[in-house]
């Protein structure tokens, strides 16, 4: 028994909200699957071959796979699904692969060929995502999901629950649980109480299912808990194009002046690992041995001093040529977490003579400020697996993204953007790693970001659930890999 804030939705394989991704991932499967290592492994496709020019992907489909209604999963069915995405290109074009995909061929029963307009290396990564490139049986009515996955939805009662049972025709290993009951519980506190009262047996996810404080309380009460590997990064972007943060010395000093561990311990209940770089080292191409900025306020003060930001006797804030060292930090006013983080940052940076002006704004205003670059510092979390690093880096090229606006003051910005374009089209693994090394190193050395911590998924369970596993992305909960407590 599990819970989710809303019903699973009609479960259209290509549908967005109100379709819930955890449920789509239970019912529909991808050609290749995203792994914890940030690579892909064979799934509905057993083998694939990428042409020399990187424009043609040829997949061999797994033989003997059937949809839960008994119809076979073959290249015709697969092509029909992908064609349906292409028929609605406008809607799905946020995914770069969809705009890059020219057409799909099905030369024989078990061969599927994707022809791209130009080479795009994250093709396999994007095929692995929960939507829209997964496969449903072709002739099904809306609201009656038929996929190849380990689960099928048996019952859905609006506002109350969704019940999933094992797919008897599943090609892979049989899940250990007979069914997954997902109750609709919108309130995080109620969810925790429901776990304590035995109404749900598992709380798991990375979307604030319960607060960090509640997680710690349940753990202290003896419930079995677990934290996943880093899935995304909580970070702030600093504006290199405006105000005091134009100065590299200021940005580096900020990175050295903030005691991240203290922030994590005080505000995040010590649950999230400290982040020293934009991407965690378990993300693809990110394990490049970047040297973290140490926590060293004395060094930060000295660096500011030598960069000309002097502290007049008795003044709390440094200044340079009459310009006070004051930075506007923009955050979402309705987010209690961002507010606490912002306030602590204000306190930490005041100690080295940097004044942080807190600016709480509403969500629409926040997006506008991101788009217009109207900020000194702003929360700009990474998108997380499976979008990191390629989709996130890709977005840095477009005006209108906080990251673009933050980076536009860098002398090297043009070259960065060109390299991002190259890395996405690169067909050579070694070259790609080199490009990423350059991009990530530059961003790190230029101190464009102030990474705080790595976001993780949480899991709390009752003793009736023996073993849990985390999904490899922010969005999936692999119930099929979980096991109930053995009866002795």
């Amino acid at each position: 028994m599990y819970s989710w804030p809303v019903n699973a939705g009609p479960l259209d394989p290509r549908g967005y909200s109100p379709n819930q991704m955890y449920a789509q991932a239970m019912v529909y499967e991808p050609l290749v699957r995203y792994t914890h290592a940030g690579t892909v492994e064979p799934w509905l496709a057993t083998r694939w071959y990428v042409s020399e020019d990187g424009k043609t992907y040829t997949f061999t489909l797994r033989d003997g796979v059937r949809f839960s209604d008994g119809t076979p999963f073959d290249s015709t069915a697969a092509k029909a699904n992908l064609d349906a995405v292409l028929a609605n290109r406008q809607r799905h074009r946020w995914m770069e692969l969809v705009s890059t995909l020219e057409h799909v061929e099905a030369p024989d029963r078990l061969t599927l060929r994707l022809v791209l307009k130009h080479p795009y290396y994250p093709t396999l990564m994007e095929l692995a995502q929960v939507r829209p490139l997964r496969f449903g049986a072709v002739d099904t009515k809306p609201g009656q999901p038929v996929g190849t996955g380990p689960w099928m939805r048996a019952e859905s009662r609006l506002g109350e629950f969704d019940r999933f049972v094992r797919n008897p025709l599943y090609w892979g290993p049989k899940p250990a649980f007979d069914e997954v009951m997902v109750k609709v519980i919108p309130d995080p506190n109620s969810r925790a109480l429901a776990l304590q009262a035995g109404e749900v047996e598992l709380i798991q996810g990375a979307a604030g299912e319960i607060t960090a404080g509640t997680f710690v309380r349940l753990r202290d009460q003896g419930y079995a808990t677990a934290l996943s590997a880093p899935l995304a990064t909580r970070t702030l972007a600093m504006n290199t194009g405006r105000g005091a943060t134009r100065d590299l010395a200021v940005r580096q000093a900020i990175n050295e002046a903030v005691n991240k561990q203290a922030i994590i311990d005080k505000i995040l209940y010590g649950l999230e690992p400290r982040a020293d770089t934009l991407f965690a080292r378990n993300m693809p191409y990110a394990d490049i041995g970047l040297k973290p900025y140490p926590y060293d306020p004395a060094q930060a003060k000295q660096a500011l001093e030598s960069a000309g930001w002097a502290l007049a006797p008795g003044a709390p804030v440094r200044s340079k040529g009459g310009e006070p060292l004051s930075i506007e930090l923009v955050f979402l006013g309705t987010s209690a977490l961002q507010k606490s983080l912002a306030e602590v940052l204000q306190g930490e940076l005041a100690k080295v003579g940097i004044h942080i002006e807190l600016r709480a704004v509403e969500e629409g205003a926040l997006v506008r400020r991101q788009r217009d670059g109207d900020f000194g510092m702003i929360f700009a979390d990474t998108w997380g697996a499976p979008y990191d690093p390629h989709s996130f880096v890709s977005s840095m090229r477009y005006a209108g993204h906080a990251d673009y606006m933050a980076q536009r003051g860098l002398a090297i910005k043009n070259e960065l953007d060109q390299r991002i374009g190259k890395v996405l089209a690169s067909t050579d693994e070694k070259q790609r790693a080199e490009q990423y090394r350059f991009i990530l190193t530059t961003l790190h050395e230029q101190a464009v970001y102030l990474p705080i911590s790595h976001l993780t998924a949480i899991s709390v369970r009752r003793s009736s659930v023996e073993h849990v596993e985390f999904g490899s992305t922010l969005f999936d909960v692999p119930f099929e890999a979980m096991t109930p407590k053995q009866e002795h």
Partner: protein
Amino acid sequence: MLRYILLRLVLLLPVMFGVSLLVFVLLHLGSTDPALDYLRLSHIPPTDAAIAEVRHALGLDRPLYEQYLTWLWKALHLDFGISYLTGRPVLDDLLYYLPATLQLGGLALACTLLLSIPLGLMAARWQGRWPDHAVRAVTFLGVSMPNFWLAFLLIALFSLWLGWLPPLGRGTAGQLVMPVLAIALMSMSINARLLRASLLEASGQRHVTYARARGLPERQVWRDHVLRNAWLPFVTATGMHVGELIGGALVIETIFAWPGVGRFAVSAVLNRDFPVMQCFTLLLTGLLMVCNLLVDVCYAWLDPRSRLEGASA
């Protein structure tokens, strides 16, 4: 009387129209953008292109007056649009969730009346003695305690410690107890205190002393001279509590995972589901106005003086 009721019902229409316009303007003048919520819920990065695409799909890129007129025209045909959040017709969703809320609200109202009347009578009858003190203590607590806090305390007590009641969901009688109590306690307390106060006030009036002096039995004095006058504020307050009970349901339904309109409306507000908020406000307006009408009719029935005023108006 019938004419008066009909007139009031007809007056509902311009009020509803005014409310719909006001809500529409307030929703759309804010800097909030439902397209952002849609993208967030869909886990699609909010690029300019994506925002524009969604705004177009939701019809938000058209001029405001055109959006309102389209909405109004459809609403007159009882089509309140499609929820941004669930993708289903708003009216279908609201009507689907309404019975659960009516059940909760109705029981809470019944509970309010059934408990507040004897408590108020008891406190007034034995003023200054222990039943009075007990009632005042309980109702003081009830008036002061926020309903969501009470809800969590109830769950902690009855579900976690004692294990008597299920903490959430709908279906069995046991699942009704805590939400009803959490919603009703405040109205019940206000009503009990109000009844006590107005009973005491009425019993101090000269005509009551006179009735006693005439040698009427104490029972009759209370029934005909005290209660009759003390009812009026109580009836007004009860009418107002209907709104409060629905308002309580908003929070309480979310806590108890109760599949009602309240919880549905809360998630609509959190996610800027404009069509649902529009329709829900109208529904609530209509409900409150009908309740006010009922109160006024009760008034006229209880108090001949107001009947005369009503007739001349």
